[in-house]
C-alpha cells in the first residue's frame, strides 16, 4: 500500500478555482484514477471527473498529472514515492466543465470535419466478412492540451485531427478526397504546426501526430510538382 496526497484543482467557471488536497491510500498496483474514484466514493461526492474504461481505450480520463498530460487510468501510483504530493489539473485548451472534467466538443467537432472513420480495415485472414479494428487514436485530447499552437488559436485543427487526416489521405475510405486535402492545407492546417512535438510526447496510443504532420507537409509539397 502507499499513501499519496492528491492536490486537485477544484471549482468551475461559475464557482471559481482553488486547489484542494486529499490523502488516499492505495494498493501498489493501483493507478491515479483509483485514487480519484476513492475520493469520489469516500471523501467528496461533489468531485467531477471523466472516466470509463480504465485501460486507455475510451480516452476519457485525460488530465495534467504534475503538469504533464496523462491518462489517469494508466498512471501507476508506484511512479510516486510514498507520501508524495501529486498535482492533478484538467486538460488545457478545452472549455472547463468543473474540477478535472473538460468539454471535449472542440476536438470532436474537428474530428467530425476530418471525417476519419472510427474503424479501419485489418488483415483478417480467411473470413467471408472483411476484418476490421478500431483506429488507434482514442480522441482523448492529451495532444490538444499539450500543443502550444492549439493554446494560441482555437481555429488550428491540432495534432489529433491532422493525424486523422494523414490516415485518410494515406488510406482513403469513402471520403471526399479533395475536401480532405483542402482541409489539411487550409490556413489552420499543417503549416501552422511549430514542431514542438509535444503531441507525440504525450500520446498514450502511439499515434505519433508530429510524424503524421511531417508526412502531410511532404505530401502537400511534392504533390504540386
Amino acid at each position, binding site marked *: 500500500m502507499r499513501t499519496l496526497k492528491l492536490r486537485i484543482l477544484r471549482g*468551475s*467557471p*461559475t*464557482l471559481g478555482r482553488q486547489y484542494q488536497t486529499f490523502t488516499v491510500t492505495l*494498493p501498489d*498496483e*493501483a*493507478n491515479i484514477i*483509483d485514487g480519484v474514484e*476513492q475520493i*469520489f*466514493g*469516500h471523501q467528496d*461526492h*461533489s468531485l*467531477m471527473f*471523466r*472516466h*470509463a*474504461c*480504465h*485501460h*486507455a*481505450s*475510451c480516452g*476519457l480520463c485525460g488530465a495534467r498529472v504534475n503538469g504533464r498530460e496523462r491518462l489517469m*487510468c*494508466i498512471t501507476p501510483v508506484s511512479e510516486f514515492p510514498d507520501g508524495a504530493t501529486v498535482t492533478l489539473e484538467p486538460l488545457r485548451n478545452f472549455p472547463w*466543465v*468543473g474540477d478535472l*472534467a473538460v468539454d*471535449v*466538443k472542440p476536438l*470532436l*467537432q474537428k*474530428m*467530425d470535419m476530418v471525417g476519419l*472513420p*472510427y*474503424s479501419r480495415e*485489418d488483415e*483478417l*485472414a*480467411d*473470413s467471408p*466478412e*472483411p*476484418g*476490421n*479494428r*478500431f483506429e*488507434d487514436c*482514442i480522441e482523448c485530447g492529451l495532444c490538444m492540451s499539450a500543443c502550444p499552437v492549439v493554446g494560441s488559436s482555437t481555429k488550428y485543427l491540432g495534432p489529433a485531427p491532422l493525424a486523422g487526416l494523414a490516415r485518410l489521405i494515406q488510406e482513403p475510405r469513402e471520403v471526399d478526397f479533395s475536401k480532405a486535402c483542402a482541409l489539411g492545407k487550409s490556413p489552420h492546417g499543417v503549416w501552422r504546426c511549430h514542431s514542438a512535438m509535444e503531441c507525440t510526447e504525450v500520446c498514450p*496510443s*502511439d499515434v505519433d501526430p508530429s510524424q503524421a504532420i511531417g508526412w502531410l507537409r511532404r505530401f502537400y509539397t511534392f504533390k504540386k510538382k
Partner: protein
Amino acid sequence: MSLHALIIGAGSTGTAVAHDLALRGFRVTVVERGEIASETTGRNHGLLHSGGRYAMTDPEAAQECAEENALMRKLMPDLLERNDGLFVAINEEDLTYRERFLEGCARAGIPAQELTPKQALELEPHLNPKLLTAIRVPDGVFDPFHFSMAFLATAKLNGAVVYTYTEVIDFVWSGRSITGVKVLDRRTKKESVLGADLVINAAGPWGGEIGQMAGIKHIAMVPTAGIMVAVHRRWSKRIINRLNRPGDGDIIVPQRRNSVIGTTSWVVQDPDQIPVPPEQIKQMLDCGTLLVPAFATAPLRGVSAAARPLLDKTVGGGKVEGRELTRGFDCFNHAADGAEGLFSILGGKTTTSRAMAEKLGDIVGRVTGVTTPCRTKEVPLATYRAFYRS
C-alpha cells in the same frame, strides 16, 4: 403536444431508451450525474455477444444476443470490430462441452464453425498451442462509450436534450403521480426542477437508490461487481472464449491496443465504492495465460471494477450470488408501488440494450396510449461524433 419522458441515467440502457422513445415521438430529456457511459457501461468488456456464451445455459439470452448482434452490425457498422470470436477447449473437461455448445448454437441460430487446432493456430498464433478444438462464432468488439454516444447522438438529432453532471436528488409529486424531478447541477451547485409526464429509472446499479427516493422499498436488482484486467498489445484478432460453463476469467477481448481479460462476480453494497481486489488481478492473468500464454509476461495496462445491475429473481425467498443471477432484464411500472408515471428498466446486457429499450417503449406506449410502433430496428444510428454537432 407530445409527452415528455425524462430518463435517469446515460449508460447503454438509458441512451438506448432515449433513442427508442425519441423515435416514437416523445419529447425526451436525459439526466446523467456524471459523463455519459462512465460507470457500468464504460467499464464493460466491449464484447458484442454472438450468444455463444449463453448457448448452453440460457437459450433465451443466447437467441436474443444472436438477433441483436446481427441487427447492430447493420445499424452501427462503423462502431464495431467485426472480427468474430473463438470458443477454445484447452483440456479434456472443456472438450466435454463441445457437443452441447454446438447444439446450443444451432438452437439459438448462432452460426458456429468448428476449426481444427491447426486452423485455429493459423488464425490466432498466440493461442495456447495445446488447444483441443476451437469453434468460431460471430462475436464482435464495440467501444462502450461510443456505443452509448451513437444512441444519444441519434436521439439528439430527433430532439432529445441531454444534461450531464446533473444529479437527480428528489422526485416532484402531484398526489400519487410523479410529475418531475429535482436536480442538482454539479457545475454550479444550483438546484432546479425538471417537469415530466413520465420518468424512466435507467440508473443501473443505482436503480435501487432512485427507487427508494420514490418511496419504493425494494427493487429486484443486485449490484454485482466484476474485474477487468488489460495487458499491452492485441494478442489475438478475435475474441477468445473458454469453451466451458460461463465462469471467471474466461473471455479475452482485443480492445484498441490492449487485450482485456474478464471477469469475476461478487455482490457489492455501494456501487460507488468498489476497490479492486489485488488477488483478482493475478487470478485474471493466470486465466488469461491458459488461453493465451503471452499473458504471463505481457505488461499490465489497466485494471478496473464496476457493478452490473443484475436482476434478483429470488425476491421473497432464497439467496443467490453473482453468476446465478440472471443476465436478463425487466421493466417495472411503479404505478402498483404508489408511484404513477415512474418506470424502471433494470438488468440486461449492453449487446441487447436496443431490445431492452424496445420492450420498455412498448410498455410505456401501452400505458400512455402512444401507439407509434418501435422503429429502432430500421433506423441506422448516427456517428457518435454527431453528439457534439450542436
